[in-house]
């Protein structure tokens, strides 16, 4: 039996879907069999981040309503043949999937895959409760902004109330230069405020926008881009390996140095 992990945030636009696409790709690069489940019904996006938007035939709601079987609805990744996507329905309502149905679906997927990564919709309503229902563990993602941290705290409270014990935090869009100047909450501040374990730090990186434009998870270029490197460290940590975050801050200043050199 594999493990099901839900990625959630409360606030929208903090990088849940990007995180799912990259962590999933990263785990698949390690040779593990991975399925990504997009539960954001009506606001499907995980397909776009993976560049799979043209390959969707069936979706999660089709499976639940019996129009196809589970295997038919899985979309195989372009690059990695051990990575699959179960897309959300784009034309249905969030209420189309019940908690019981989601639990059953995730249970079935766990039989065939090492990891089932569940992309949760924003908010704390039905869609969120459904997304977390089948998961064994939860990853909370936030940016260092007060609004996003407050929503993360709310989500952490709800996850704990739902019996989740292994919660961990990814801090997205960190600008180390602003943290150093005292103008951005640092990772230590966030861990203290939210009292949660750290899973990863993703620096702000314009290359991430370019990779999303292309539909290529940036972790495929972990050697070139610092956000790609950062996601590969998340994968390492998730697999229980030793991780040093200093590497990340160093990589930023190294790249900055190169840029400065060429700009003169």
């Amino acid at each position, binding site marked *: 039996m594999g493990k099901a992990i839900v990625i959630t945030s409360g606030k929208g636009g903090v990088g849940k879907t990007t995180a799912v696409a990259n962590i999933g790709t990263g785990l698949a690069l390690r040779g593990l069999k991975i399925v990504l489940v997009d539960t954001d019904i009506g606001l499907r996006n995980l397909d776009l981040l993976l560049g799979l938007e043209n390959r969707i035939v069936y979706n999660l709601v089709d499976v639940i309503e019996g129009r196809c079987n589970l295997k038919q609805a899985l979309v195989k990744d372009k690059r990695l043949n051990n990575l699959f996507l179960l897309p959300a329905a784009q034309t249905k309502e969030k209420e189309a999937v019940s908690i019981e149905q989601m639990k059953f679906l995730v249970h079935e997927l766990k039989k065939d895959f090492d990891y089932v990564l569940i992309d949760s919709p924003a908010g704390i309503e039905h869609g969120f409760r459904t997304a977390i229902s089948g998961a064994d563990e939860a990853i909370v993602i936030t940016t260092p902004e*007060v609004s996003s*941290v*407050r929503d993360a*705290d*709310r989500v952490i*409270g709800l996850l704990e109330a739902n019996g989740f014990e292994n919660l961990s935090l990814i801090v997205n869009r960190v600008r180390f230069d602003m*943290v150093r*100047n*005292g*103008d*951005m*909450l*640092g990772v230590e*501040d966030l861990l203290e*405020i939210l009292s949660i374990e750290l899973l990863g730090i993703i620096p702000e990186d314009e290359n991430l926008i370019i990779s999303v434009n292309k539909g290529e998870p940036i972790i495929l270029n972990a050697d070139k881009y610092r956000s790609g490197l950062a996601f590969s460290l998340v994968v390492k940590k998730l697999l229980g390996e030793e991780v040093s975050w200093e590497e990340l801050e160093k990589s930023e200043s190294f790249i900055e140095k190169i840029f400065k050199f060429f700009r003169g």
Partner: protein
Amino acid sequence: MIINSLWGKKVPSKEVAKERLQVVLVYDRAKIEPKLIEQIKEDLVNVVSKYLNFDHENIKVELSNEEIKSILRIDIPLKD
């Protein structure tokens, strides 16, 4: 920048953010609206003034997080 240095030491904005967050999260976690604390304060002033002479200005009612519990802390400085 000159203005900042004229005013002396500037509080880093992340410290402001941290403090505001810590306060708002105490209320969020306890599921209490800040307005309720004001009402408690008013009621306390009315009740306690029936029995004691105290400094109305410096009464303090606040929520704080201690260890795993939220605590409602009330400070009523008495007059000599």
